[in-house]
């Protein structure tokens, strides 16, 4: 699994990465986590509001820092 965090490197985006990593650790899932901070990449994904999280190339949420629970729910599907 490949998880991309889309963000400008802002504190909110870093917090999102932490939360994603935490959710992965709690679920015991091994996934690749990458931080994408090139705004040109965002538009390929159609993302305007950062931070956003994409799982395997699909944008799952955008515009707010998720909770660990939220990420777990996304990973379950």
């Amino acid at each position, binding site marked *: 699994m490949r998880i991309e965090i889309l963000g*400008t490197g*802002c*504190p909110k985006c870093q917090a999102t990465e932490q939360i994603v990593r935490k959710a992965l650790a709690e679920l015991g899932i091994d996934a690749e986590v990458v931080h994408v901070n090139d705004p*040109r990449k*965002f*538009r390929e994904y159609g993302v305007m509001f950062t931070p956003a999280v994409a799982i395997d190339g699909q944008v799952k949420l955008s515009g707010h820092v998720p909770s660990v629970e939220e990420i777990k729910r996304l990973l379950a599907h």
Partner: protein
Amino acid sequence: MTWWQIILSGFEALKEYIALHVLTCLIPAFLLAGAMVTFVSREAIVRYMGAATSKFKSFALAAGGSFFVAACSCTVIPVASGLYYGGAGVGPAFILLWVAPAANILALVYTGTILGGKMVGVRILAALLMAFVVGGVMSLVFRKEEKARAESNPSQAAQAHTKVMKRADVVLLLLLVLALLAPNYIVQKGPYYQKVIVWAVGMAIAFGYAFLTKTREEIGHWMKETWWFVRLIFPLLLAGVFVVGIIGALLPEAWVTEWLGGASLRSSFLATLIGAISYFATMTEAPFVHKLMGLGMGAGPALALLLTGPGLSLPNWLAIARVFGVKKALVYVPTLILLGTLVGWIAGNTVLR
């Protein structure tokens, strides 16, 4: 002056600032910004901007909608880029890029409590005026490119059906605005505890309404977003106020009066340049300008600095050049510097005299 006195003046400024602003001004402002992020659909606003058909309508929507996208210049770039590459014109995209930081609600309200209502009114008008001119200039200069883009990129007007916000949310936002304005406008001269009373009543009403109309989860989201604003902006604001205190102690008054005083074209240009180059986090421009005005800065140059301070900065030029291309940045930035200078000069000699 010894270094100790200089540092002390930084702390003095900090003390005065915390005593006067945190409770009655900053807390409601952060709550308002948090509520806007949670309850206003920014996606819907931006979609409306992109879907507008006539040029005037798209300009007006971009300028008006940007007031509600509480943002500093760094977070607004992906939004403007998304708007532009989603098919909207170059005009509205750059209007959003300018208005969202230069005239966002947080900064406006805060300007009002520190510099007074008249300055806010002029700031809003000037920001809108500059937005329309900059949008027009961008569309004109890049008209060939725009035409090619419009042909290859069919408009995606059909999808604008998400509601921007529900009626209950509008009421909540209005109550928060009132809670924010009331202490500073009802009690303009009285002792500070009277402000606190008005503040407490306003907050109680807003929260009462929120608890009646919102689910626990929505209120939780709201508080989380508010806390993010506090964490992101508050430290910058404190650092900014501290630095402003020190600068105020170091800068000779004669120097400020000489270079930034009055309403000459030169003062206005210098103020615009300071604002356009250095980075001001949202809201930090107001105490800075307040301090400079105390040292003799003219009202016109002050307006110019208020406008370009949060809207432009060197890092922001570079980011715009990277996302939109160097050519667009080379048109956008000088146009705004020119406009800022003119607006400061004209306002300084007319409405702000």
